[in-house]
């Protein structure tokens, strides 16, 4: 049974339970809703909830678990000898799945009957020919064990889906019956539905948290794998970044310091651009601008935040870089070799961060109570004195939080760096040198034909983990500061 139908059937059962439970409680109450504990809709919702939620939960879990089970079962069928030297069990299993898909396709187009598809003694060349007739992708690797495994794969899968459909429908029906039986006028359906709503909200919140956890775990295992192949001290304290790709052989230098330095240098340049401009823009918008200017200027500024970073990267590469070369290059001051440099990427990234700083600071400055300003004006202070000496000090913790959030954004930025800062990992103080950052190197280590077992590829996970820890630390610090600030006025 197709999944969509199963899903709709469960919903139909739930809807039926809703209608029946509602009708039942109304009948029991003699059509007088005043004698009920809850509104009739709650009795219906209770029955619908009890039928749909457990059934759908089982459905999801089953769909997640079945491929594991089937893969393991099929994997056991393939003898070690059938795996060619150049391939792995994973590749063979992919082949099995492809063959099974081909069989499905052949059956559905009529090139093969269901019995033929299941025939374990079928001739391999005949099957192959029929598969290609049906338009399936057939490779030379379909061997007898693979075909056998593919057939078993289909059998297990279809049996699994049939059992799943039966189980899910049974659970839905049982849940509907449970909810229906419970439905009596003095049953506290309203409270039960409230619990259900609460559980739903908790589930939504935990998905977000679990995803974060999953991301961290996927990084952690590969990072541990990397440190097994490459010494951690060389990684954290190495001053040279020179990966040699496994094809060429030789050992690589995978020191993170040049990359971290590039990251911080570019971020600092970006913040030096973004913080004053963003802060001044925020002060103008929140304190000086009339409401009409504000209604127009604030969305305009926030448009900057909506531009994809790759577009900023192009701006850096095509406009800012050449402009800087004209001034600081060989024709000018002679400090700059090429358009790609820390300065190029930093300036453009600073422009990208302006709306971040200004928008957050604007909210924070607006949160400073008007009574503070009144108090200052009442003492004969001018507007800028009030802002400098009362508003900004009061908003400072929040502004620092905003700057830290912008900083973690700058550290994690990739595209502007790839296009604007060059690719050379270098420890240099000259802001007109090309440098590169952690994120840009993660991209370059993982793109192309990389062998996932080599330290050169696995280093990307260690880099990612380092970056994750740094930005997480900055975010936690920012949130802590912002929260501390909030307590002051509430």
């Amino acid at each position: 049974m197709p999944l969509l139908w199963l899903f709709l059937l469960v919903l139909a059962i739930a809807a039926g339970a809703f209608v029946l439970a509602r009708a039942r409680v109304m009948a029991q109450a003699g059509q007088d809703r005043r004698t009920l504990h809850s509104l009739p809709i709650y009795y219906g919702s209770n029955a619908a909830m009890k039928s749909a939620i457990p059934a759908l939960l089982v459905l999801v879990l089953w769909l997640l678990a079945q491929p594991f089970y089937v893969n393991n079962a099929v994997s056991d069928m393939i003898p070690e000898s059938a795996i060619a030297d150049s391939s792995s069990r994973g590749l063979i299993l992919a082949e099995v799945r492809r063959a099974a898909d081909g069989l499905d396709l052949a059956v559905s187009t009529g090139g093969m009957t269901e019995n033929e598809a299941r025939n374990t003694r079928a001739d391999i060349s005949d099957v192959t020919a029929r598969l290609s007739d049906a338009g399936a992708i057939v490779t030379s690797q379909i061997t007898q064990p693979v075909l056998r495994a593919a057939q078993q794969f289909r059998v297990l899968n279809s049996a699994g889906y049939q059992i799943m459909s039966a189980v899910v429908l049974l659970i839905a029906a049982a849940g509907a019956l449970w909810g229906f039986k419970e439905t009596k006028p003095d049953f506290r359906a309203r409270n039960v539905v409230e619990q259900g709503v609460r559980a739903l909200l908790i589930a939504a919140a935990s998905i977000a948290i679990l995803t974060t956890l999953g991301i961290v775990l996927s990084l952690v295992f590969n990072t541990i794998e990397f440190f097994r192949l490459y010494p951690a001290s060389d990684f954290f304290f190495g001053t040279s970044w020179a990966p040699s790709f496994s094809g060429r052989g030789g050992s690589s230098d995978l020191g993170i310091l040049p990359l971290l330095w590039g990251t911080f240098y570019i971020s600092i340049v970006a913040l030096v651009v973004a913080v004053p401009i963003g802060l001044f823009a925020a002060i103008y918008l929140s304190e000086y601008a009339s409401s009409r200017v504000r209604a127009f200027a604030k969305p305009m500024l926030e448009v900057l935040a909506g531009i994809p970073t790759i577009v900023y990267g192009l701006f850096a590469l095509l406009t800012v870089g050449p402009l800087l070369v004209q001034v600081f290059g060989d024709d000018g001051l002679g400090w700059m070799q090429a358009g790609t440099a820390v300065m190029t990427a930093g300036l453009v990234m600073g422009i990208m961060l302006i709306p971040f700083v200004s928008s957050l600071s604007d909210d924070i400055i607006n949160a400073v109570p008007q009574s503070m300003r009144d108090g200052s004006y009442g003492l004969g202070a001018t507007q800028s004195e009030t802002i400098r000496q009362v508003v900004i000090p009061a908003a400072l913790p929040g502004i620092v939080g905003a700057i830290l959030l912008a900083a973690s954004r700058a550290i994690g930025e990739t595209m502007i760096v790839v296009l604007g800062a060059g690719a050379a990992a270098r420890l240099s103080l000259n802001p007109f040198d090309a440098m590169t950052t952690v994120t840009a190197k993660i991209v370059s280590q993982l793109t192309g034909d990389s062998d996932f077992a080599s330290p050169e590829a696995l280093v990307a996970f260690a880099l990612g983990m380092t970056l994750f820890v740094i930005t997480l630390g900055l975010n936690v610090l920012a949130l802590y500061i912002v929260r501390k600030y909030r307590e002051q006025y509430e």
Partner: protein
Amino acid sequence: MYDIPHHTQETAVTDVKIKAKDVQVYYGNNHAIKDVSVEIENNTVTAFIGPSGCGKSTFLRCLNRMNDTIDICRVEGDILIDGDDIYDKRVDPVQLRAKVGMVFQKPNPFPKSIYDNIAYGPRIHGMARNKAELDDIVERALRRGAIWDEVKDRLQAPGTGLSGGQQQRLCIARAVATEPEVLLMDEPCSALDPIATAQVEELIDELRQNYAVVIVTHSMQQAARVSQKTAFFHLGNLVEYDDTSKIFTNPEDSRTESYITGRIG
């Protein structure tokens, strides 16, 4: 129109400090203050009473041009302090506000130390030549605010850490630190408990020695306790302005009588 105050023995000098004539205030199209004329005397506590929304706070804020910070607000008529029109183009509202101090409904100490709260005004107006003079100004203001004894050992502690009543007295001290001539108070006790209120009221009575004090209050008892003159506002009109004792014992207008006996408001 106005009688000479009965209790002249209480007021040292009875010269007119603020003179308002035919003042109109508009918020957009809303005519908030209509034809208000009043003469406020020096060394006197003048109370503005009236039901909510009657315009008493709005009128108070006209006296130091705080309404300038509200875009849609428009003031017409003459307000003279010591004979000078404060709405004259040559008058700098910032300078005016240093001369006409203001204390607000809710205590609003700045998120700075107690010392810096008081020193804020003197610093921006350059009133002290050196640190010692500034220390003197701060101490004098805190003494006038009747809070010196409570905070003299913790001048560097944050002003926001004081209790509500202490914060309000700190704000009064902050206002007197710039040596104003007039002190405007917008319901200064409405956020305070009865004990703190009593302390602030006592302080207001002392401040009368040096300033003309104008206080907006919701509490008729408070007006009766602290003021020598009372103005009753109703729906944007100044209904009656007279000696406090007269207003509370023998009001001329029936609306005033209804308000002070609790039938309206």
